[in-house]
């Protein structure tokens, strides 16, 4: 279906979305770029003049920069690993015939509904608190010394909180994919003498590869931007300062908009590197 008329209609109908998003991307981007070349200190009255590349140099040479990139990557990769692995296991479990499948499914999706702020608050206070938290009680019950999650195991704790929020998403995408697996393929493999582990490895896993790609793509987009979880739990302390949190500190806590904007530009560059990398894979794996 491609007459001239429909093609021009298509262009017209795409315009609003494209123009709006272009605006949403360009306006802040240009403003951010502009700020990043200025000495812009709101608490000293705002724009203090041209800064050249000072902000850029200062941002990367700051001792916090590389650790924050590293932290960002650890959190993203950690959450991806956990959600994908447990997502697959859960999807396989939920695919089995059982009683009350609908209810179980609702239980499993529920964390996705919880606001990140709320989930961070609940985990921090009611579970990970080293004195009154449920984990502390549990540890003590087994005679162990309670762990101060948010200081001694801060990164794992944040990865865990974020994974809890995103596990439903991964599980559901993977569940849908598992359900779309032609059962005849599994039966064929069974007839061919493949035991259950090999059936998983040779048939199920390759079948899931597309879904896994999508989980990775979408989660990465959201995970690169996580903020509330860190703000609420550790405030960036104990090595949990991600790149976007570092920018937050520069812009809002230190009130150095120029420096923060330079950081923002770096973050955009990093995001785009990740995006290009992802889209290479996804482009191959989509349709």
């Amino acid at each position, binding site marked *: 279906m491609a007459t001239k008329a429909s093609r021009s209609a298509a262009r017209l109908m795409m315009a609003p979305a494209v123009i709006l998003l272009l605006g949403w991307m360009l306006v802040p981007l240009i403003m951010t770029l502009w700020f990043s070349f200025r000495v812009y200190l709101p608490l000293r009255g705002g724009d203090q003049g041209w800064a050249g590349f000072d902000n850029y140099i200062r941002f990367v040479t700051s001792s916090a920069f590389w650790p924050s990139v590293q932290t960002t990557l650890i959190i993203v990769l950690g959450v991806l690993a956990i959600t994908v692995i447990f997502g697959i296991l859960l999807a396989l479990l939920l695919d089995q015939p059982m009683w009350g499948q609908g209810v179980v499914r609702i239980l499993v999706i529920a964390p996705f509904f919880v606001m990140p702020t709320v989930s961070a608050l609940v985990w921090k206070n009611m579970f990970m608190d080293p004195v009154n938290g449920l984990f502390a009680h549990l540890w003590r019950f087994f005679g162990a010394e309670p762990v101060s999650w948010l200081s001694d195991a801060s990164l794992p704790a944040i990865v865990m909180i974020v994974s809890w929020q995103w596990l439903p998403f991964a599980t559901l995408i993977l569940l849908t994919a598992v359900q779309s697996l*032609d059962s*005849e*393929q599994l039966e*064929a493999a069974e*007839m*061919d003498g*493949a035991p259950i582990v*090999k059936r998983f490895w*040779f048939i199920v896993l390759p079948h899931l590869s597309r879904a896994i790609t999508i989980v990775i793509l979408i989660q990465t987009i959201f995970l690169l931007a996580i903020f509330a979880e860190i703000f609420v739990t550790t405030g960036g302390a104990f090595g949990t300062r991600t790149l976007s949190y570092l920018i937050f500190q520069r812009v809002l806590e230190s009130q150095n908009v120029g420096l923060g904007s330079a950081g923002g530009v770096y973050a955009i560059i990093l995001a785009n590197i990740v995006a290009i990398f992802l889209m290479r894979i996804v482009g191959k794996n989509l349709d």
Partner: protein
Amino acid sequence: MGQIQLKQVTKSFGDVQVIPPLDLTIEDGEFTVFVGPSGCGKSTLLRLIAGLEDITTGHIEIDGKDATDLVPAKRGLAMVFQSYALYPHMSVRKNIAFPLRMAKMDPAEIDRRVNAAAEVLNLADYIDRRPGQLSGGQRQRVAIGRAIVREPSAFLFDEPLSNLDAALRVGMRMEISELHKKLATTMIYVTHDQVEAMTMADKIVVLQAGVIEQVGSPLELYRAPRNTFVAGFIGSPKMNLITGDEAAKHNATTIGIRPEHIDVVESGGAWTGTVGVAEHLGSDTFFHIHNTGLAEMLTVRAIGDVSLRHGDTIHLNPRTEEMHRFDADGLRIA
């Protein structure tokens, strides 16, 4: 080797008994076809034999040994699925090699067998493609290839050709028949296409609602259907089944006469009617005939091109020696 015996086998899904007690023996090397209407239990029966479903009661013996509780992989059977069930992410070579790899066979031997199978099935040119890059017929061949390499004692086919178009179906049908001649291995073949059943089978098993209606060679079924169900099911176009006075004349509740057993005559003839639709295929002409005075519409086949058209009057002579008679229960009157 590949004799398969079902002894008083039943299968229930929950409370629904899909297969009532059933006995069946499939001899070694035989090409057996299960036919029957949709939902009659053909696939279920095949899957019971394969071990993909547990039987509810009864026994299955393969080559005389009880296989009732054996897992599928241990029964020495190979199955070809309707959807082909190829592994989409593996090349043709890997697909075919898969069962051998699972059996931890020596790689050199795997290679040898895969190449031999590819040779037999004309797959050599596609051996490194993925299933997605193959046509339907080629995929079906890969599925068969995967079955062949295991050198199973019997092949199970579940409507393997139903996803192919008419021309390809004819071709693949012959390929499978030739394969059977070559390998002389037991094959069980499920279809609801009676042409496939007629042309391929050594033995046809006609099923209805899980019950075996008749077992026999294709021509036995064609010539002496045991009841009206089999009579209507085997043969294309369908046998004309006529009830009422005309049947009573022959001391039967129902009489059956196949379209090819009614001759078109210039004049006279037992029956006269008007042509409804005339289908001119060149090689044959099929007439659908109304107003014969019989309760049912008649279908008649004439050889070659007969130039009668819609609305013309037609004179017909059934060959009485080819007529089938059935009683009130639909059973054949000898």
